[in-house]
């Protein structure tokens, strides 16, 4: 079930209503049923897979708990990791690696007989396998006690607000909250609903409006020059941010309505002044996961520069693969890692340059320059993300550096309605302007959050008339933009 579907409009209030009416002892069971229904509606087969994953990790956790030493726990950790990674590899990476080997063997003129599999990628598999692997590792390390209640553990794996696209929660945060009786608190519930509304706004008013523009470019990449490619890349970054952070907002808001606090997943990434800072503000739960379970165990940045660079590259390589089984994502991950490693490598040079800049370094304009630079690097790297194959990425990458004057002239002259092609990327002027207004609203809200604090707190100081006009206006906009075709969240495919 999609958050942006009509079904969810019925599902959520019914689930919340029943949840609060039910006696506390039945709530976990009801939430579990609701979560299975939410997940299984798309494909019942996916449920079977998540049940297997749940049972293996539950048993492995309990067995590890029984052992006093790490050595004793290790076999059960290995079982848990192998089964989770096995499921992930089979469903997500098997065909990618198999096809790659087939191409390699073909190149070497060696017969290759292992067939590809016709399998559907289960929705959210990368999210829940990472979440349960994190749990198993924490139990193995003795950081947490294993959960002995199968129901609560199953709910931890399948809790519907965050099951499909995160945030990837640590069991130490989520599990204890299921065991606390929650009441209907006006402020908490309305704050949750406001966050959900903001999420829907980002999804339908911004992300879904950019989606056809990106498709317009990627369907015929040869037809575009530098200006359009850069514009498309910049818009794509807004699309993926508004799409994914919207999911997180709806998840966090939805959980908040039910009294569960999920972790923050995005922190205004476009205010970052470097790519490494951006990655600390983007998909925070995944980055934390990598930090805790890959980067730190490898030695982090404490074992010398070279090892630190290696560890960064490993994290971004895995991050690329986590996002998708294709060379595009792999190279995208590597390039992100490379930019960060180069920034670390030339820290001295950068500080010397900063000294020469003097007081300008502290000016607003310099900060803005750094932000724009970071955003543009991220946007250009995004070409690998939004194109379906390396060929399209290569075409757009090359186009980025050509035909700028033609594009600018085309926009100015609008000959043969060229503006619609170059600037509006297939939209008409009204829709394009409406989109820009949406992005400006988003940026204004980010500005307030970054420099003035919580928007909800600030709004609380305004008059009732102002607040209600705003809430009603946003709700009407969401209704106006909820066209007949629900565009799935991009991160569902991961």
């Amino acid at each position: 079930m999609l958050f942006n579907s009509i079904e969810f409009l019925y599902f959520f209030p019914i689930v919340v209503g029943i949840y609060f009416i039910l006696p506390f002892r039945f709530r976990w069971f009801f939430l579990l049923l609701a979560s299975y229904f939410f997940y299984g509606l798309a494909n019942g087969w996916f449920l079977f897979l998540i049940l297997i994953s749940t049972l293996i990790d539950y048993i492995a956790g309990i067995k590890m708990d029984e052992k006093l030493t790490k050595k004793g726990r290790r076999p059960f950790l290995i079982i848990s990791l192998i089964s989770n990674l096995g499921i992930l590899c089979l469903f997500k990476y098997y065909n990618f690696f198999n096809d790659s080997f087939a191409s390699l063997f073909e190149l070497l003129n060696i017969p290759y007989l292992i067939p590809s599999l016709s399998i559907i990628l289960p929705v959210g598999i990368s999210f829940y396998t990472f979440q349960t692997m994190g749990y198993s590792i924490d139990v193995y390390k003795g950081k947490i006690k294993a959960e002995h209640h199968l129901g609560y553990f199953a709910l931890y794996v399948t809790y519907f607000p965050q099951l499909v696209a995160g945030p990837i929660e640590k069991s130490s945060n989520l599990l204890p909250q299921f065991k606390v009786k929650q009441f209907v608190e006006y402020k908490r519930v309305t704050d949750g609903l406001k966050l959900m509304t903001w999420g829907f706004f980002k999804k339908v008013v911004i992300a879904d409006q950019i989606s056809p523009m990106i498709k317009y470019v990627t369907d015929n990449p040869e037809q575009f020059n530098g200006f359009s490619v850069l514009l498309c890349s910049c818009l794509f970054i807004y699309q993926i941010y508004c799409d994914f952070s919207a999911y997180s907002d709806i998840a966090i808001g939805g959980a908040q309505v039910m009294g569960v606090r999920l972790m923050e997943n995005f922190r205004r990434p476009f205010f970052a002044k470097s790519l490494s800072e951006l990655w600390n503000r983007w998909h925070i739960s995944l980055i934390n996961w990598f930090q805790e379970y890959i980067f730190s165990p490898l030695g982090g940045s404490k074992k010398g520069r070279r090892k630190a660079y290696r560890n960064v590259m490993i994290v971004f390589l895995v991050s690329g693969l986590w996002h998708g089984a294709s060379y595009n994502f792999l190279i995208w991950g590597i390039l992100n890692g490379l930019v960060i490693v180069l920034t670390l490598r030339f820290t001295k040079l950068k500080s010397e340059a900063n000294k020469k800049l003097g007081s300008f370094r502290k000016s607003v304009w310099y900060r803005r320059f750094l932000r724009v630079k970071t955003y543009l690097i991220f946007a250009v790297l995004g070409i690998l993300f939004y194109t379906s194959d390396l060929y399209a990425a290569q075409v757009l990458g090359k186009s980025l550096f050509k035909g700028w004057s033609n594009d600018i002239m085309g926009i100015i002259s609008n000959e043969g309605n060229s503006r619609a092609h170059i600037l509006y990327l297939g939209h008409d002027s009204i829709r394009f302007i409406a989109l820009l207004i949406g992005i400006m609203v988003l940026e204004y809200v980010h500005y307030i959050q970054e420099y003035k604090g919580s928007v909800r707190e600030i709004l609380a100081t305004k008059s009732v008339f102002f607040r209600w006009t705003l809430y009603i206006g946003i709700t009407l906009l969401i209704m106006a933009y909820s066209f007949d075709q629900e565009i799935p969240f991009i991160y569902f495919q991961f």
Partner: protein
Amino acid sequence: MKQLIVKIALFVFIIFLVDKPIGFSISKGIINRQYDQRIELLMKGKVRSDVVIIGSSRSLNGIDTGELEKNLNNQTAYNFGFSGSNLNFHESIFNIITQVYQPKTILLVVDDDDAFKVNEKAIYRKDKLFPFIQYEPVLNEIVKNSSKSYLPSKVSWLYRENQNMFEAINWVFKGRLEPDETTNVNEFGFIPLSNEDKHLNKLVDRNLSIDYSPQKEQKTFIESLIAIVNESETMGIDLYLVRLPSYKAKLVGFNDRLVEIVGKNVPILDFSNELQDRKYHFDNGHLNANGAKSVASLISKKLNP
């Protein structure tokens, strides 16, 4: 808890109050923006013709409905052909018309070899229906053929009309759409094409015959045709399947296939081997104004008792 419920109820009530005028404004704007007003005329009761033509551009441009009306004995005629539409869409047009009134006769123009197969040039033209979604019969068809939800569309006018929002705004700034070759209909719903044959592929071997192959036929298109046939029978409408002349190689066996699908009770008006001269054709698939006029005359001879 009580405070929360009261405030949510109040919020929903205000939304409900504001929703209707906005939806109504969008509806007004989008209908005014359309050049092709045939569905609007139908809904307003201004089209109640005895003979109605349904089909794709081949029917929109291929049957001069004014000429047909002139040749029919005291019967009126109207063309509801839509460019680039497929049989699923024709079924929707049939349903919309018959929910409003029951014509005596319906001529369904069948696109020969493309009728039951996927063709990217013939699709379900949601875009032709959305501007008129305020009308219940149109809403019903859109709901059946898209992911638009019925219940929210009944509750919220804004949701119902939201697909039309940007075009309605365009009406404010740009006014009515300029007519084009797919919308410039005359008072009979017909668009004549020029008599020049410069679009014609003259290299087509007219003596060649091609056997119709049912391979790649889509079940959904066949079901639509059967639905139209069954509904016509139930309502007592005289349904005719029409095959228009084209400037292509002859298609053999298609009539047999049609009989196989719809049975022998539905008459097939087969003009596919008529009007073979180039002067009747706009391109290989469409008749020009001369051709449309001549076909109208041929049809009227069949319909007049």
